[in-house]
């Protein structure tokens, strides 16, 4: 399409997209796949919120194309609309033409990162989070300790009661803060957990970054569910953050660096699968290949790695549950995690696992595969939109009459828990794995 328009009508100016790495460029075919049929519109959470073409997948692709052609400035307007995208990829599910929207938007964000100067505060904050904290496990731990201090010293209660948070406009954002664990998961790195009963598979576990300080229990539960189902679980040393948050934010150089480290950590040994309990991480891990242009030394290893990559629900559904499950009398509804259902096209596996638990009644929620507004750091960067989506989600969740909302990604857990609290639905929010662990018994 780029060239098409150039041939017929010369481009107005030079392309707004320049990139240092070939993996951060788009080809004619990438855009041309979009036939602007509009079937994505009603599936896009932000289009549904605002009704603006600029905040629809079709409109965003058109904007990228126009910037690429030099017909639209890579300026505030473009950046705002691309920033406002949740990258939930619901449009990919809706798209009949197979547009890889996730790839397009990540590349567009990389272009923004390289060609647009954000306001100073935003620049510093982004740099701090994406370049200086997330890539470094020790710094994550240090930051987590600070938050833990705030949460457990009584400061949090004070801040909430005093109205200081409201004053700062942080009241609802603060609720999204994960509860920091007493004991971090980092200590498990390098350990191997034997299978119970006959060993059916040997898997490596991807432990995440923030998850290691805020979801240690979930990670432990994952190990327990896997071992109970005959899997030997190895938690390889040397693994780092998957790079998803950085990639989604357009900080692709950092994402690439993290990917290289992880490839080294996981490709050393032969595993039946690499599993993760975080759909957001899994989606990026399964697309490591996209970070490296063909010809890059990491391109082939990335492909080998992603073939082995499995979401934990996908893997368990594949091998089948063999552990003894006791009844959990609970009426639940399942909220699809975007990066599982749209990013990885996994819709049935988690539902199959939920239904396998005796006593559980699964009630489908309308628009279950629409984003809850969590979307990585979206709920922090675009709080208003995120909370509007969350409100709709909680309305739909309440309408199911379910006692618990089950989902498949830590980010979604945080958002939905905040939602249940803000909207007083009284619903428990569980990861699929937590539900299974409860049926298997033991601590969770």
């Amino acid at each position: 399409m780029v060239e098409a328009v150039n041939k017929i009508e010369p481009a107005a100016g030079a392309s707004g997209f320049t990139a240092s790495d070939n993996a951060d460029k788009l080809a004619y075919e990438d855009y041309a796949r979009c036939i602007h049929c509009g079937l994505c519109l009603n599936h896009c959470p932000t289009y549904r919120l605002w009704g603006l073409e600029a905040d629809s997948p079709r409109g965003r692709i058109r904007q990228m194309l126009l910037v690429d052609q030099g017909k639209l400035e890579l300026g505030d307007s473009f950046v705002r609309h691309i920033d406002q995208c949740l990258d939930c990829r619901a449009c990919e599910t809706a798209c009949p033409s197979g547009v890889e929207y996730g790839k397009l938007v990540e590349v567009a964000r990389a272009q923004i990162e390289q060609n647009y100067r954000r306001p100073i505060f935003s620049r510093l904050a982004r740099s701090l989070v994406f370049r200086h904290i997330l890539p470094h496990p020790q710094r994550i731990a240090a930051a987590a300790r600070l938050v833990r201090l705030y949460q457990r010293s009584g400061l949090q209660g004070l801040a909430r009661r005093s109205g200081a948070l409201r004053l700062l406009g942080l009241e609802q954002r603060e609720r999204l803060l994960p509860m920091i664990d007493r004991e971090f998961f980092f200590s498990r790195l390098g350990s191997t957990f034997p299978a119970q009963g006959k060993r059916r598979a040997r898997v490596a576990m991807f432990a995440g970054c923030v998850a290691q300080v805020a979801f240690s229990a979930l990670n432990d539960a994952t190990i327990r569910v896997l071992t109970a189902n005959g899997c030997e679980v190895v938690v390889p040393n040397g693994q780092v953050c998957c790079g998803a948050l950085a990639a989604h934010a357009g900080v692709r150089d950092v994402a690439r660096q993290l990917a290289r480290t992880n490839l080294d950590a996981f490709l050393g040994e032969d595993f039946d699968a690499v599993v993760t309990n975080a759909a957001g991480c899994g989606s990026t891990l399964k697309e490591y290949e996209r970070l490296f242009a063909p010809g890059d030394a990491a391109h082939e290893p990335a492909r080998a790695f992603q073939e082995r990559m499995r979401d934990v629900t996908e893997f368990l559904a594949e091998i089948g549950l063999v552990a003894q499950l006791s009844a959990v009398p609970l009426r639940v509804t399942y909220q699809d995690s975007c990066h599982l259902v749209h990013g990885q096209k996994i819709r049935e596996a988690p539902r199959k696992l939920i239904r396998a638990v005796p006593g559980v009644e699964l009630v489908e929620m309308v628009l279950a595969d629409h984003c809850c507004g969590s979307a990585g750091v979206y709920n922090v960067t675009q709080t208003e939109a995120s909370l509007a989506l969350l409100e709709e989600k909680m309305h739909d969740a309440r309408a199911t009459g379910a006692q618990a909302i089950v989902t498949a990604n830590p980010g979604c857990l945080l958002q939905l828990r905040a939602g249940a609290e803000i909207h007083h639905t009284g619903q428990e929010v569980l990861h699929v794995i937590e539900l299974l662990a409860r049926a298997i018994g033991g601590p969770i």
Partner: protein
Amino acid sequence: MDKKLVRELEQALGKDAVLWKTEDLMLYEYDGSVEQARPEYVVFPRSTRDVVQIMLLANRFQVPLVGRGAGTGLSGGALARHGGILLVFSRMNRILELDFENQRAVVQPGVVNLDLTRAVEHAGLYFAPDPSSQKACTIGGNVAENAGGPHTLAYGVTANHVTGLELVLPEGDVVRIGGKVTDSPGYDLTGLLVGSEGTLAIVTEVTVKLTRLPEAVKTLLAVYDAVDDATETVAEMTARGITPAACEMLDGWMLRAVEDFVHAGFPTDSAAVLLIEVEGLREGVEAQADEISEVCRLHHAREVRVARDARERDLLWKGRKNAFGAIGRLSPTYYVQDGVIPRTKLPATLRRIDEIGKTYGFRIGNIFHAGDGNLHPIILFDARDKEQFDRAVAASNEIMKFCVEMGGALTGEHGVGMEKNELMPLMFSEADLNLMRRVRDCFNPAGLLNPGKILPLGKGCGEIRARPLPVSATSRA
């Protein structure tokens, strides 16, 4: 762009409901078709009152006014061909009333087609018109274009399901026509308005019929080794008076594109398939399915499959409904046509289309509503090459000419829009067109509502002019 008009629009609607910067307008110059045209203002009304205000301003400033739903149309109906204000209904999307007992719904124009069905299916009802874009397209758009879909074979097009409208006329008057009842004394203005492509009035409220969901549905897939056998099957089914709810044909080439996307189990080595659906009472569905299978076999169907469950059925339909999109996988650009022919002429017409393709050097695919003779030839070409684009348009015009010669029509469901207004003389005499102009002028005397659509622009000249090349070709052209 008139700053004064911007200010007045903003005063009337609020700042967040008016767009006028180039960077925003550029996103409203396309729809689902090959056409392009950029508006000068884009507005987002929330109520009929807003629409009246916009109308009055358009009138005062003498600028065109064009309605738009989701912009999924395939004939450029929702493009501001002569600039002016584009009135987008994306924020006027409330279902106003659901009257289950009388099987009616009253909706704002921006309600998405499938969302209405979702809202009523718990009561065993649905909204029958089912254009392939139904998960995104709006009911206002359906009304403007008189949209069809696969199941129009049994249930009719949008016009058959609309009983009343609220209109805003160019003078700013709000008029209700029709209602929940089916017969209103006087001229059938509702019948005229549906399909008038926004050239007569702006519709602000629609009263539609809801249809009862069938007790049973059976979906058959008949597989053929020759295209002629498939078309002969359709002709014979029609002649025998078998009326399925839908009867779609996909040629082998389209099948392969679709299968690549949906993995529905379409046999990729076949020359054509018919996707046939029968609905109704269990007993009737069984009887019809048996008879259809018999006709298919009689015409050498290699295999007649019956979808085993709802999942299989959904998959087959997913393939059909996403077919146009799936072509994006084959070719960066394509041009989809929409012509109708008598069903007895199906075999001859498909052969002719194939010939035309050969003459012009294109591979022309076919995926269409065979049951009612509504063809959708698809011409794949490379838009980077202007010569190819011109050739594609010429081939497509030749197909349209043939359809009309066969006693058919220029468009079965996509509308005339700005795609075919210059082809209208193929079907209508100057006298016919003059009367249409006069009727348009009754409603829209100053020509401010969606100018440049439906009727040919050149007056008094019956010859057919070539369609102009879009300002800048997009992925489809």
